[in-house]
């Protein structure tokens, strides 16, 4: 019996899969579901067996957005006290790679969840959108921030103001996603990509993510100082010795993640 109500999880050879599991509601995100996603991902982040996390949804769509019924009657004080978006902050602190495998509708909160991933692989035909504007609100879980940092202010405003559907091709052209694959092969391709990253030395993967994330927020100078420290830090790892020795000895390295 799973400890989760709205998601399913599994681990196969170093790759953990977290699946949104409300397919009849097109995986609309309610608060408990977000908590479960974050809890599952944090657990895998600390699990030594897991090197990469794949986030996806059951059914036709990744997620059509937040559960509107749940918040229609909310007021600002309740929202402040509830502090629901703190869960989303925790997602930003995850150290291991998160690969989003998305399809169908990726709308609103679902789009924000996708933007919280490090790599996005989309099934052909996937549509992204921030439709919040059409119901008198706006994204609240990082949508305006993450999208703008990805695609720039000009395009972000266009998409956020119109709420229009963004085809996968446009998302690819603007750097929102990494690639488009045949819908039938979405999980297979995502797992293949995850497997490739899972074979890399985990500490390198980890500190690369850490450094790249700093590039988004820091000045170039600060970012370079930060990068340098991470670079030095890797020289304390067994995998650095193994990687460089294997290179010199012309053999395949055997990484331990230590």
């Amino acid at each position, binding site marked *: 019996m799973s400890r989760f109500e709205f998601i399913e999880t599994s681990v196969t050879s170093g790759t953990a899969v977290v699946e949104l599991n409300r397919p009849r509601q097109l995986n609309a995100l309610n608060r408990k579901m977000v908590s479960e996603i974050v809890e599952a991902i944090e657990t895998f982040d600390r699990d030594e067996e897991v090197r990469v996390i794949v986030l996806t949804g059951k059914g036709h769509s990744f997620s059509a957005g937040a559960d509107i019924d749940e918040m229609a009657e909310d007021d600002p004080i309740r929202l402040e006290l509830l502090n629901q978006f703190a869960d989303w902050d925790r997602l930003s602190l995850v150290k291991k790679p998160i690969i989003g495998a998305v399809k169908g509708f990726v709308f609103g909160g679902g789009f924000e969840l996708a933007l919280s991933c490090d790599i996005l692989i989309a099934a052909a035909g996937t549509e992204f959108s921030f439709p919040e504007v059409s119901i008198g609100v706006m994204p609240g879980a990082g949508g305006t921030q993450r999208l703008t940092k990805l695609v720039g202010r000009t395009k972000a405003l266009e998409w956020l103001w119109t709420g229009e559907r963004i085809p996968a091709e446009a998302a690819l052209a603007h750097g929102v996603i990494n690639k488009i694959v*045949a819908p*039938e092969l979405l999980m297979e*391709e995502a797992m293949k990509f995850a497997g490739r990253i899972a074979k890399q030395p985990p500490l390198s993967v980890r500190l690369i993510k850490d450094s790249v994330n700093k590039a988004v927020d820091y000045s170039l100078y600060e970012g370079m100082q930060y990068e340098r420290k991470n670079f030095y830090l890797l020289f304390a790892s067994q995998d650095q010795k193994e990687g460089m020795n294997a290179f010199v000895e012309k053999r395949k390295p055997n990484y331990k993640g230590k």
Partner: protein
Amino acid sequence: MFETIRYDVKDGVAWLFLNRPDKLNAFTAQMNREIKDAVKAASQNDEVRCIVITGEGRAFCSGQDLSEVDESMDHGDVLRKHYGPMVKQIRQCEKPIIAAVNGVAAGAGFSLALACDFRLVSEKASFINAFIHVGLIPDSGNLYFLTQLVGPAKAAELSILGEKVSAAQAAELGLANQLIPAEAFEDEVSAFAARLAVMPTKAIGLIKRSLKAASVLSFEDYLEQEAQGQRTAGLTADHREGVEAFLQKRKPVFSGK
């Protein structure tokens, strides 16, 4: 369910009859929508493995019903709202679509025939890019498809001069896959549709995907697209059935799955 078209599914074939014969099956906004909805229904129906679009009466489709055109009409928005969604639905469909061109296909009716995968053409049929005669340009994807089918020079000639193309000329130009005597038309179309309906439907859809990709992707990206298509086809029951039947020296029975 439909008023301007007739839609029947029989023996794996979805038949879509444009059904305004007294108006030579001219398009109205409702007909645009009904064609779109019917193609969508056929796409989603597992029983359907081939779609035929044809016209009731003596015309295939005479294009936009000009009695619906007035001065306040925004021609661009009509395309965005009505014709565009219709041809997009046809192009998205992963099942084979036959235009059974029984009579004249004029204007957007020509475009409709062009958007399909096959054009089976009755000797009584004709094509005319009539837009120029009312001071308009070919629409509903017309030139997108026409340039691919007959090349830019011929496409320009057909569109600028707007001359009628007979069924025989259409066959010479490669617009028609088959030219069929009028009296045999219905039987030949039925036979062709029946043949497609027992083929490996999923593989046909994947071929359509690759054909579309070929015109937009770089060669390298195309090869990756192709690899994914073949992987997908390789997972189908019809692939296994095809290989088994070959090894057992019998005729394959494809399920479309």
